[in-house]
């Protein structure tokens, strides 16, 4: 089967989970025998990718493309593609228009069996490719504009693109039931057009000789030796991630049980607000802000943790929870995060329920047996979630799309 995959990023040039998911999904599909042509909007080497052909739609460097903000639709103004200037590669719409033009030519040349477009960024290209060739279009929704904008209304142009893409698609993959429900309720798409395809984790990708270095977070190791429990979250600091609730829950928990510290790894527009909130609540010295972490500092942040919290208000999936499980954390996840749909050995809470979160943190921190049990059980559980199963599911979706099992 020949697949034209339309994406926005791949490791190591990714700024978040979208690139990671596309990478593993493609790799697993290739293992199942698929031939994949993957289009990205920038030009760079991908040293670890030899299982598919990567096409660069523009000559931008990945860094220039980051500047456009793959996750931040606020920078997109009101331009429709006809008005966008393909020579303006500083403008997201200009780059997207270039991307569409590139895909128009490529799809005519390749004549794939199916077009698989990831998120709104590439949906216009997917629609255009389908229009030109009548090849079935599968749209994969990793996050909707409703997720990205938190409680705000989001960008109307992005909503419009998502709506059209979802309407035009022959089949839709949603990364969780949460996302599926948003697509049904907010975009009015019939449920039977949508399949839930949860993401997975590639356990092998972590076996790269990594060894925890306890000097990276030396101070945290010192407080751990004093009997403290380290609660970690690794994320972008945006409204969508619900971190203000986590800070308030932290304050509540510390009131009852003081031997807690919180590692906030990451960065984002909400950082200053969180710092201020922590100081208002009198727990500045309980919360450690690392800034953006990569490589060793990123892996070690998981390793130093005892408990991982995903506090998202709306999280389509949430791969970091699986990564945290791999590094031995007990998990506390909001019910509003997709990943909590596929795991059992976890604590769940509603994102606004700070009391419950505080309670769960204290419970794990004060009970060595609960902590050991949760850490052990999730370790057994997460690794069963395999990208091979995702690939198999994708292939059956492709086949149903080709047969025209659609609305």
């Amino acid at each position, binding site marked *: 089967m020949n697949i034209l995959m339309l994406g926005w990023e791949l490791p190591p040039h990714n700024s978040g989970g979208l690139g990671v998911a596309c990478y593993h999904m493609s790799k697993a599909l290739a293992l199942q025998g698929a031939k994949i042509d993957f289009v990205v909007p920038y030009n760079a080497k991908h040293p670890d990718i030899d299982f598919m052909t990567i096409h660069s739609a523009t000559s931008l460097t990945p860094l220039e493309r980051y500047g456009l903000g793959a996750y931040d639709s606020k920078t997109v103004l009101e331009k429709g593609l006809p008005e966008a200037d393909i020579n303006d590669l500083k403008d997201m719409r200009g780059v997207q228009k270039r991307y569409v033009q590139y895909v128009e030519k490529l799809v005519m040349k390749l004549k794939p069996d199916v077009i698989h477009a990831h998120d709104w960024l590439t949906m216009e290209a997917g629609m255009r490719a389908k229009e030109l060739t009548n090849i079935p279009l599968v749209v994969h929704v990793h996050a909707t504009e409703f997720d990205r904008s938190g409680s705000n209304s989001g960008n109307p142009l992005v909503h419009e693109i998502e709506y059209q893409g979802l309407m035009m698609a022959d089949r839709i993959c949603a990364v969780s039931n949460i996302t599926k429900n948003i697509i049904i309720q907010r975009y009015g798409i019939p449920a039977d057009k949508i399949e839930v395809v949860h993401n997975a984790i590639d356990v092998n990708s972590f076996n790269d000789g990594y060894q925890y270095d306890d000097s990276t977070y*030396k*101070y945290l190791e010192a*407080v751990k030796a004093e009997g403290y429990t380290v609660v970690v979250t690794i994320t972008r600091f945006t409204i969508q991630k619900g971190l203000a609730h986590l800070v308030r829950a932290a304050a509540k928990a510390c009131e009852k049980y003081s031997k807690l510290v919180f590692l906030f790894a990451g960065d984002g527009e909400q950082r200053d607000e969180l*710092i*201020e909130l922590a100081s208002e609540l*009198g727990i500045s*010295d*309980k919360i450690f*802000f690392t800034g953006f972490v990569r490589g060793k500092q990123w892996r070690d942040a998981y390793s130093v943790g005892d408990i991982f919290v995903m506090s998202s208000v709306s999280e389509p999936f949430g791969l970091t929870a699986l990564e945290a499980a791999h590094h031995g954390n007990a998990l506390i996840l909001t019910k509003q995060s997709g990943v909590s749909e596929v795991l059992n050995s976890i604590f769940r809470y509603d994102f606004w329920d700070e009391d419950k979160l505080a309670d769960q943190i204290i419970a794990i921190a004060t009970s060595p047996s609960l902590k050991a049990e949760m850490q052990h059980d999730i370790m057994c559980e997460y690794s069963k979630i395999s990208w091979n199963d995702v690939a198999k599911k994708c292939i059956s979706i492709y086949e149903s799309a080709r047969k025209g099992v659609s609305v």
Partner: protein
Amino acid sequence: MSKRGIVMYLHVHQPYRVRKYSVFDTANNHDYFDESDYNCDRNNEQVFRKVAEKSYRPMNALIEKILAKHPDYKLSLSITGTFIEQAEQWAPDVIESFKRIVATGRVEIVSETYYHSLAFFYSVPEFERQVEIHKAKIRELFGVETQVFRNTELAYNDSLAKWADGYGFKGILAEGWDPILDWRSPNYVYRPTGTKNIALLLKNYRLSDDMAFRFGDKNWPEWPLTADKYNGWVNDSITDKEIVNLFMDYETFGEHQWSDTGIFDFYEAFVEKWLSNPVNTFYTVSGAIDAFEPAGEISMPNTVTWADMERDLTAWLGNSMQQESLRYIYSLEDDIMRTGDIQLISDWRKLQTSDHVYYMCTKWFNDGDVHAYFSPYESPYDAFLYYINVVRDLRWRLHNHHNGGGLNG
């Protein structure tokens, strides 16, 4: 009858700015004040060398020149310990020039906390230790005894006056703020309410700020300010009164007001102009107190500073980050002192310098007056994060020293 006179008082200070100090430095590196990037405003050496070139050297040269030319010229200086340490390291010639001007006997050194701290409001024992360390350093360097006290940021209230009175100071400095003075003029010597022997000198903030803040501002209707015009204003203000207290940062000359504004020439011309009238003179702070009896009592139950429109401590203690920082730092006092570890104690004290919390100020978010709050950090939040990481490292060092206890997250 004593001549009417100007009391010129300049405050000389540089803090030890905290470097970009991350979570990953905590418990690993203890070099809080050594920013590695030389071309960065957190690099204390770079800043010091720059300001020495722009301000300390040319201004001290000018002061020496004026002292030589005008026997009636007098000056008072407060020089912080953190300034002296940095000058000794990076510009010893500046120390030498200060020694020369003090040796004339016409330049008085004012007492303050060595570390330019707000310790009075947190721990009087620590505050007194810092005053003593400063006294000792001034004695060692200049061979003089300080007699008049100024608190950091001119932060003053009645209980500070009582403390200074009891400690044996003959004078203390404060802001001459209208709501306190009401109908009274700052151009007299006063006595703080509830004290016996101490005199109070109040900053004439209009005339001081004309020079310190507005001098080079081309949008100011009075720009350009000439020595004649300013001399006229000082005359109008003093008329039949005793003194005009011009209190400001030393760095006004050459740093806040660059040389190309004409500040140096202006000052020299103004001194000349003022002294050309035989009824005029200059006083040191002690000289003014000796020359005049207090004209009345002044009470300031609430703390008044020389900052902002509010003249309070909100630029240093106005938000929760600032309050928390100082709460953390002063809560370490007993454990730190107990170590007897000179390096640890010195680092802890350098972190008490008021500039650190000033960099965390968010007041300007409201009034939009960004330029009034210079900071070497990207934001008040960054300043706070680096500071908290340092506080944790102090705890870690303490923990090692005492072999357990008290890390507290």
